[in-house]
Every structure is written in C-alpha cells, then in structure tokens.
C-alpha cells in the first residue's frame, strides 16, 4: 500500500502581527479600487465594454487630427474646444459610470462594513469623488496628450499650441471636478443603477436643451447680456467660459461668455451644492 503523498495539515488559526495602516491608506486603497471599477478593471468583461468603447470614441478625433497634421500639414483640432465638441461622449461616460461607483454599495448595504472600519464617511465620499475625477481626467487628458505628442513629432509650418494644450489640461481638471460632483450626487440618490444612469443623462439633456432654447429666445428678444449667462446652463459651456477667462484662450465658437469671476463662482457654487447633497445623502444612510 502506498503512503499518501500530499497531506494537508491544519495549521490552525494564525494571528496577524504585521503593520496596520491608518485611515489614509484605507481611503487610498478605496480610491484605487473605485478608479479601477470605473473602467471595469477587475470586474466582468461586460463591465469593461462601455467605458472602453467611450474611451475609444474620445481617442478617435485625436487620431484623425494627427493624420490630418501629418498628411495635410494643417493645424490640429482645437485643444481648448475638445471637451465641448466631445460632450455627448463625456456625458454618456459620466452617466454610465457614476452609478457604478455609488449604487452597488447603497443597494447591497455594504456601507456599514466600511463604517465599521477606520475609514469615515467623509473618506468614503472623498475616495469615490477622487476616483470619478481621475476617471474623467483619463478620458479627457489622454486624447489631448496624444494629439500634442503628435504635434511635437510632426513638423508643422506654425508655432506649437503649447499654451492651448496646457489651458485644456486645466479646463479638463475643472470639467472633471464639476461633472464628478454632479454625476455622483445624482447617482447616489437612487440605489438602482439604471435609474442612476437615466437621471444623469436626463440632467445633461435638460441643461443642453435649456441652455440652447433659453439663449436662442433671449438673443432674439435682444437681451444679449442675459443670453451670455443663460448659455452657461450647459456645464460644458460653463467650464469653457471659466477656462477662457482663466487662461485667456479663445472661447468655443467665439461665444460671448461673461468675463471676470462670474462663471468661476457659478462653477464653485455648483460643485459645493452637489457635494453638500452627496454628504447629506450619506448622512442619511449612516443614520439608518
């Protein structure tokens, strides 16, 4: 009779005496985990389809622009207008991926497990917010950078658009902060993912339509001043206006945005309001 070769020994319970990191490390781990989640990394194949499809769509104009620079020796697509032109893609990404970050934890009541650990509710919201900002930045900054690298490599008979590129990076950050706060606040109000997607898309469609209609009406009535404000209802135009005022770049389509600090204050107010809503939502979840 042969002896058993592989024997599994029950070595019993072993205590952990390694390092225990604080809430900062926990929050960073949650940030990385959430950021991976927005692109479906570490999740099923199905959850990767949408984000990568949209990322591909964002890259397309940059690639085409490089081809045009190389073949026709023409100027690249405007860096500062990129986000406004690509707004449907960015809005769909926001609508599709914001609920991915917040809805499952609410729906499956995972939050008490986080709260029974060193991380606090503020860390939790902060990590989710930072993850959405980072995801949107990747979505917007990668195509801009690819196009800029293309411009560097191709010898064009004109000066480099370095200032426009840098201004667009700043604009992307503003855009990411604004959109992430709105997207998460709207998505967090329902534990159902589908409803979250619908509410973010509906919000975007509403601002898009309201901005266009109101501006058209005001302009035809001759209220030029009011119409330059009403156009800011669309978050992408709002960011473009702040970007224009902040970096002195050309406004998209030469739109007559209000100058000075007005648009920037609106942007700050909207972000503050959205974050307050998000916090209130989770305070409620905490008490339950």
């Amino acid at each position, binding site marked *: 009779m042969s002896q058993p070769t592989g024997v599994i020994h029950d070595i*019993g*319970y*072993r*205590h*952990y005496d*390694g*390092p*225990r*990191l*604080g*809430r900062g*490390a*926990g929050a960073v*781990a*949650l940030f990385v*985990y959430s950021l991976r989640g927005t692109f479906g990394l*570490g*999740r*099923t194949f199905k959850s990767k389809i949408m984000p990568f499809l949209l990322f591909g769509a964002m890259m397309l104009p940059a690639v085409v622009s490089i081809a045009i620079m190389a073949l026709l020796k023409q100027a690249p697509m405007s860096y500062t207008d990129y986000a406004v032109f690509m707004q449907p893609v960015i809005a769909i990404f926001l609508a599709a991926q914001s609920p991915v970050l917040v809805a*499952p*934890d609410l729906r*499956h*009541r*995972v939050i*008490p*497990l*986080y*709260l*029974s*650990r*060193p*991380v*606090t509710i503020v860390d939790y919201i902060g990590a989710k917010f930072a993850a959405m900002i980072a995801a949107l930045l990747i979505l917007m900054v990668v195509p801009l950078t690819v196009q800029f690298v293309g411009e560097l490599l191709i010898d064009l008979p004109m000066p480099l658009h370095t200032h426009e590129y840098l201004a667009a990076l700043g604009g992307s950050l503003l855009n990411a902060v604004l959109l992430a706060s709105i997207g998460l606040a709207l998505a967090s109000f329902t534990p159902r993912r589908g409803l979250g997607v619908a509410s973010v898309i509906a919000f975007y469609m509403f601002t898009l339509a309201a901005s266009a209609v109101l501006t058209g009406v005001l302009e035809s009535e001759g209220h030029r001043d009011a119409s330059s404000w009403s156009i800011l209802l669309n978050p992408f135009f709002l960011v473009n206006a702040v970007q224009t005022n902040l970096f002195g770049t050309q406004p998209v389509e030469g739109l007559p945005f209000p100058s000075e600090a007005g648009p920037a204050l609106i942007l700050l107010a909207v972000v503050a309001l959205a974050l307050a809503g998000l916090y209130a939502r989770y305070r409620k979840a*905490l008490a339950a």
Partner: protein
Amino acid sequence: MTILATEALTKRYPRVTALDRLTVEVGAGVTGLVGANGAGKSTLIKILLGLVPASEGSARVLGLDPATQGQEIRRSVGYMPEHDCLPPDQSATEFIVHMARMSGLPRIAARERAADTLRHVGLQEERYRPIGGYSTGMKQRVKLAQALVHDPKVIFLDEPTNGLDPQGRDEMLRLVHRIGTEFGISVLVCSHLLGELERICDHVIVIDAGQLLRSSAIGELTQASQVISVEVEEGLEKLAARLTETGETVVVEGRSLTVQVRADETYDLLRDAVVDLDLNLVRLEQRHARIEDVFR
C-alpha cells in the same frame, strides 16, 4: 480581563429610548447578548463602534472611549451586521481582500489573510465564484470572514445564524465557539434565541427595552436549575412517592420523572430508592435547564 464596559449608557432618539442607563461588563471569551427585536442590541453595537454618540453615560472598548477613539477601536474590532451586506457581482476572495485593505492591511498581507480566513470559515473552491450565486449559509460565512480578516481582538456578531437551516446553524455556532476559544478572539454575539447562545457562550447578558435584565456566567444559570430525568419500566408513582417522602422535589412528566437536584445526596437517594423498590431502570440522565426556564 474586561473587553468592554458601559456605565449608565443611555441613547435617546426623538421618539424612543433605545438604551436606558445600561451598565454591563464583558470579559474575554464568548458573551451572548440577548434581547427581543428592538431591545437595543444594534444601538449598543453602533455606540461601541463609535458610529453613534451616546446621549448619556460612557462606554469603553478595549480600554478606549468610542466617543473620541472610535477609529482605534474600529481598527481592532470586527463587525458582522445582521442584514445582507455583500455585493453579488464580486467573488468572496476579491471582496474579502478589499475589506482587509479597508481595515488597513497592506496588499500582500490582505491577500494572505483573506485566503486564511476564508479557509477557516469553511469556504472552499466556491470562493472564486461571484457571491450572488451563494447559498444563505455561504453568504453568512463570507460576512463572518470580513469581520475576521484583519485579526481583530473582539468581534461583534449580530444574529449570525439568521436564515440558516438547522445544520447551518450548528456549523455557524461551532465556528463562533472556535473563534472565541481556539482563535482567542473575544466574541459578543447578539441573538434572540437563548437556546443557541447557551451552547456557545461563557456569559450571557439579557437586555430588554434598553435595560439590563440579567448578566451572569452560563454555569451559574444552568447549575442553579439542574434536574435529573429518570425513566423506569413500571412503578413510576411508587418512586415518586418515595422520593417525595425523603424531601425531594419531584414532577411526573408523562413516562419520566423529573427530580430537582437539591444537593449531591439527591443522586444517592435516587439510586437507593430505585434499588430498594426493585425497579427496572431504563434511563437516568442529567438535564440542564434551558436558560429560557431561568428567565421565565
């Protein structure tokens, strides 16, 4: 060693008083916290974790004050909620690794501890499959694993046997008992089923409407009401009469006789009575009274 203690702990919500001047002390080992639904068990746990401030009174967990040192407490305490709390689209392994990292374990340590812990709670190959497809018993094990993964000093288990079939219950209770003894982790386990706690606890605390009803060691409770159950072929009445004569408390329950253990002599008296009356003894067993009887 005192694991946690409360002193006149009170929690008032606008409409109800969830805890009313509760003073308890919990030592190492497995402690049962018993109370009907709404007796204040969950509120007590929330206060001990430092998630909800107390209205009055104070508490200490591992020598720390939940009101000001909640974070340090939560680092060395595990909590298993009563309700479902697992994301269905992730595997148990991924989820437990993530929860270990949330407790502050570095990445590699988190992976090792997750694998170890899932093995201890008895999850085998299925740990790589999404949690959504698990049975209730397996889900309860994952919930327990997330409370254990960071090797806490104390764990709070809220109704760990909820929704389990009798076999699942037995396994879960055995596991909780092992955690308290073999693993050396103190356990505070909430339940509304006394019979369950009696099998695994060293100490039982009973609360009702936020007030302490009783707190005592399990031995005290069961010893105080030890009874012997006797069964003979014929002549049950004769035996009952003889024992009553000698001053024992006897109750005839169907085909058997229940004798209260007054002192050690009771055993001798019973034996002698059976021999003297020349009865055929079928069964003679010591029956521990249920804790339920004590609180009735």
